[in-house]
């Protein structure tokens, strides 16, 4: 790297363009990483806030609540597992029309029975134990909804007052609301609920044999992390983000590779000279690829820094972004790795140079 460092120091201008491209890709990658994390968080924060470890759902429902219907009595079977807690839960999307003619609300409505372990806050327990009503995500309080406002839930005759507010949370990017399980059932099934709920939420002790439990109850038992996958839009969003970021990595690798190829061709005579002096192929290759690695690392660091600042300054209510050190460092490391691979692709343009070109004699 003796030559590479001095070349970088004295002819840095040559690397500005390729460095700028890599830095821009790094900015984009960082912002997209923040957006991907933010979207996931925004789509599942309602579930994250609930203290369950597993869900028991209909077989084949793929973690999608609307595809799953289980009998609320199943909860008693799960509760028999030593150390376990179980609670039936209903989840559906409803539109709530303000009775006084104000703006209507889209809700991800969670039905939870009184005394459920899911309602672990005292004020939530009190609200569920009293007369029927809605406990809304606190985001609605910021929008001017007040305790006592009445809402008619779409598709049913059920009219409920707002009882209070709980943590800000959403499910499938729709703010959450809680009500009692029986109210939820009458909203969804009218007068004939027959004990139907979406799932049984479980808090299982570590090491529970979930496969046997699923077998015994004829349900799918999925982990909390897996339950996010069923959140509307989750898979599509995650895949779109992965695709865009993948393309960015490929573009960056190609640009670095193309630049390095041109550089290697321009340096044919210099490479021949080094070899004539006795440098091994490995020595010349280390110098060249090492130099690209320095450029890519520096550009990625700058770009990632700029991207992180942009994510930090972005208005959280306008775009669901989250600054997670882990995924930002991960995306930067991936960018560096693909850049180095990109330059390695044309390594033969260096190793095949004959030392005789130093004398201007074709081999």
């Amino acid at each position, binding site marked *: 790297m*003796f*030559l590479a460092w*001095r*070349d970088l*120091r*004295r*002819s840095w201008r040559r690397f500005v363009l390729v460095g700028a491209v890599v830095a821009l890709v790094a900015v984009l990658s960082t912002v997209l990483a923040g957006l991907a994390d933010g979207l996931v968080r925004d789509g599942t924060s309602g579930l994250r806030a609930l203290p369950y470890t597993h869900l028991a759902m209909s077989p084949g429902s793929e973690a999608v609540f609307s595809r799953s219907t289980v009998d609320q009595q199943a909860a008693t079977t799960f509760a028999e597992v030593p150390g376990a807690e179980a609670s039936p839960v209903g989840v559906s999307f409803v539109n709530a029309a303000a009775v006084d003619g104000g703006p209507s609300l889209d809700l991800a409505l969670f039905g939870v029975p009184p005394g459920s372990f899911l309602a672990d806050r005292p004020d939530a327990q009190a609200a569920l134990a009293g007369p029927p009503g809605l406990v809304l995500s606190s985001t609605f309080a910021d929008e001017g909804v007040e305790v006592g406002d009445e809402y008619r839930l779409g598709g049913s005759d059920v009219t409920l007052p707002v009882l209070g507010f709980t943590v800000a949370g959403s499910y499938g990017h729709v703010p959450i609301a809680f009500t009692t399980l029986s109210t939820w059932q009458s909203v969804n099934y009218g007068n004939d609920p027959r004990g139907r709920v979406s799932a049984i939420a479980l808090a299982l002790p570590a090491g529970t044999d979930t496969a046997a439990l699923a077998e015994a109850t004829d349900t799918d038992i999925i982990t909390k992390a897996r339950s996010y996958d069923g959140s509307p839009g989750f898979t599509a969003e995650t895949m779109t983000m992965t695709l865009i970021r993948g393309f960015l990595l490929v573009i960056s690798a190609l640009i670095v590779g193309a630049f390095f190829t041109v550089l290697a061709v321009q340096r044919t*005579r*210099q490479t021949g*000279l*080094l*070899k*004539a*002096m*006795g*440098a*091994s192929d490995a*020595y010349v290759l280390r110098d060249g690829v090492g130099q690209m690695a320095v450029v890519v690392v520096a550009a990625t660091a700058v770009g990632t820094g700029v991207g992180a600042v942009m994510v930090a300054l972005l208005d959280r209510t306008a775009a669901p972004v989250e600054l997670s050190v882990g995924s930002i460092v991960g995306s930067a490391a991936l960018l560096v790795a693909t850049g180095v691979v990109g330059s390695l692709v044309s390594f033969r343009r260096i190793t095949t140079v*004959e*030392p*005789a070109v*130093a*004398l*201007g*004699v074709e*081999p």
Partner: protein
Amino acid sequence: MSPTTTPPLSLRGLGATVPDGREERVLFDGVDLDVAAGEVVVVTGPSGSGKSTLLAVAGLLRRPPTGEVVVAGQPTASLSRRGRTAVRRQQIGIVYQSANLLGPLTAREQLELAGRIRRMPRRQIGAEADRLLGDLALGDRSGQLPAELSGGERQRVGIARALMGDPSVLLADEPTASLDPALAGEVAELLATEARRRGVAALIVTHDDAPLRHADRHLHLVGGQLVDGTGVAS
């Protein structure tokens, strides 16, 4: 052969061809030459006669189709690419027509890089570079980049670089061709003096006169044969 009489450079029955249309044209054939330690051999020859090619073969930059190059007693015909690189690294220094300096390195760094490539002990590199630069009257130019040096200075840096790491063979391709006559004489003299002082076997190919005045032996490459050059105008 005792080690003291082993010539650092020995060409034996050397031949070379170049592609010429469909056929191979013979550039030279059956070239025999021993260059002793401290001896300065100058080869002249018309343009296109194969002088640079001869040097490329002698410097193990190119494998000869026939014959063999023996460097410091070591036959090289059966060596791999890697093996030839190693011999080059340890034994051979090359001076080029246009100095062939690396643009981003100062004069002293050209020598440091050569020292590193030749795997000299790190501690010796700096001192050796300074000594060589001093010997070639470049002491005050050591921090200069090639673009900031004159043609003569550049060529002197090229010579100093070729001498880093104590090679036993010094090859020079038209070392004075790109210099004006006064400078050419100076550089040719330096080259010969340094080679003799260090006991290096020097093989210089040229088509100008300057190196001839400092030659111990003058050979002429013509018609594919290396003949005695005494009396032949270059």
